[in-house]
């Protein structure tokens, strides 16, 4: 599979504090890459550099490059809005807008204003079906998204991302606020989605990383310690620190 996205020598600073040091990492098309590591290791910060969400935080600085289809998304002439449309994001806490289910999903297409030929109804239905939520909400499309259960809300957020037709989907611990059944549904959904999208997931849960991903990167204190095929990382880690973390000696 081809390389969809990659970073080279990426460093990131909050003010004087360095949060990422020299991270170079590749993400393959139609595969799932998991980023693991203890709290504060920089994996979420790293994820947010991939769609420039860190731009919204004042006093931050970035060095290095992030390439999407070989274009640097931090190039001076890069269009942030276009980048975010290509690189969708699902957050740790389900965050549907305080709007109806329909309006949540329709939000992205409405903002970009280019639903050529396809009606908004079709986009919403298609996205909800792709997020495996359609059957549960088709009769309550105009009720608030906030009355759904946590798992449904997270799938609504995924549907919302799918509606903008991204190429990459970033997931920042998408199941950490969910119960095991809801988590299972999201994981099944990810397997469906990977047929079409490049998925990068940050997770605390090593079993989850092992279950869903093909590639795994292990972060520690802002550095990428080890990267490789998921099976290899979990069965035969090359680095002592990686081994320590996955066997539960720290983290």
């Amino acid at each position, binding site marked *: 599979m081809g390389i969809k996205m990659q970073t080279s020598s990426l460093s990131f600073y909050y003010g004087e504090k360095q949060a990422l040091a020299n991270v170079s990492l590749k993400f393959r098309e139609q595969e799932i890459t998991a980023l693991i590591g203890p709290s504060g290791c920089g994996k979420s910060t790293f994820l947010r550099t991939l769609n420039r*969400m860190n731009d919204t935080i004042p006093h931050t600085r970035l060095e290095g490059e992030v390439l999407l289809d070989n274009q640097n998304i931090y190039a001076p002439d890069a269009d942030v809005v276009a980048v*975010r449309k290509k690189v969708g994001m699902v957050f740790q806490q389900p965050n549907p*807008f305080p709007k109806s289910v329909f309006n949540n999903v329709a*939000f*992205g297409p409405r903002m970009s204003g280019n639903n050529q030929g396809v009606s908004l109804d079709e986009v919403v239905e298609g996205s909800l079906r792709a997020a495996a939520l359609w059957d549960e909400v088709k009769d309550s499309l105009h009720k608030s998204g906030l009355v759904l259960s946590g798992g449904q809300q997270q799938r609504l957020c995924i549907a919302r991302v799918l509606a903008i037709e991204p190429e990459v989907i970033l997931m920042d611990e998408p199941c950490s606020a969910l119960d095991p059944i809801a988590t299972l549904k999201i994981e099944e959904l990810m397997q469906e989605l990977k047929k079409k999208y490049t998925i990068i997931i940050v997770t605390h849960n090593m079993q989850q990383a092992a279950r869903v991903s093909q590639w795994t990167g292990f972060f520690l204190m802002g550095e990428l310690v080890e990267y490789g095929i998921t099976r290899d990382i979990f069965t035969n880690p090359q680095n002592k620190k990686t081994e320590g973390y996955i066997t539960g000696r720290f983290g």
Partner: protein
Amino acid sequence: MNRYLTDKLSHWVVLLCAFVSLLILALIAIFTFQQGFPAFREIGIVQFLTGTVWRPGQGEFGILTMILGSIYVTLGALVLSTPLGVGCAILLAEVAPHQVRGILRPMVELLVGIPSIVYGLVGMMFIVPLVREIGGTGFSILAAVIVLTAMVLPTVITISEDSIRSVPQKYKDGALSLGATRWQTIWHVTLPAARSGIITAVVLGMGRAIGETMAMIMVIGNAIRMPTSPLDPARTLTGNIAVEIMYAAGIHENALFATGVVLFVLIIALNSIAFVTRQREQEAE
């Protein structure tokens, strides 16, 4: 046991406070209605509310012109101060750099503390002559609306800003990550999420507007005539009471209290409309 007692005591103290506040409110209402009632009886409610002539000396009491005066200036101030105030609030909450906000916000808050008579004087010296350039005597509904807008703005700005600021970051992140621009995010996500707080700001502003007295007396001209244009002078209900209560006796005094009753009802009506609007907004979500 001791802790239990404190708990119980606090309960009763809080209850007592609530009761006393309600009692005071009830007493004011009862007193106003009681003092105003003879006017309704002698003048007749319909005559009082629909009459356009107010000559206490001749025993003529009609307050329609003042009801309209109050409604016109309040609505006028609302129409001007809502977009201006929400605009400023967006600027302070979402756009202005931290340092700029640090200067602007205290300044806006300072404006709330300026006594209304000062607004009235400034209005009389600067706004009235300015309005005169457009036409009429300058003492007018328009001048009153401008002064009132300036007085209401700080309330609308500060409360709107607080509510915009309290919109969770996760909504904004959600919108931005879906490829919305900064202004699309403000317009389609932040403002709707802050809507209930913004409506509260406008309702409070409206309360201040309809109750404002001294500044209005200085700029609106206090004439008792049916206003037909924004450049015409008018009298507000509050102005009528304030200007004449010092001298009033007998039925004249009752009529002024009756004016207060009408003001009371008007405020309750406006608040109810605002309440229903807000309720409906929330249900629409």
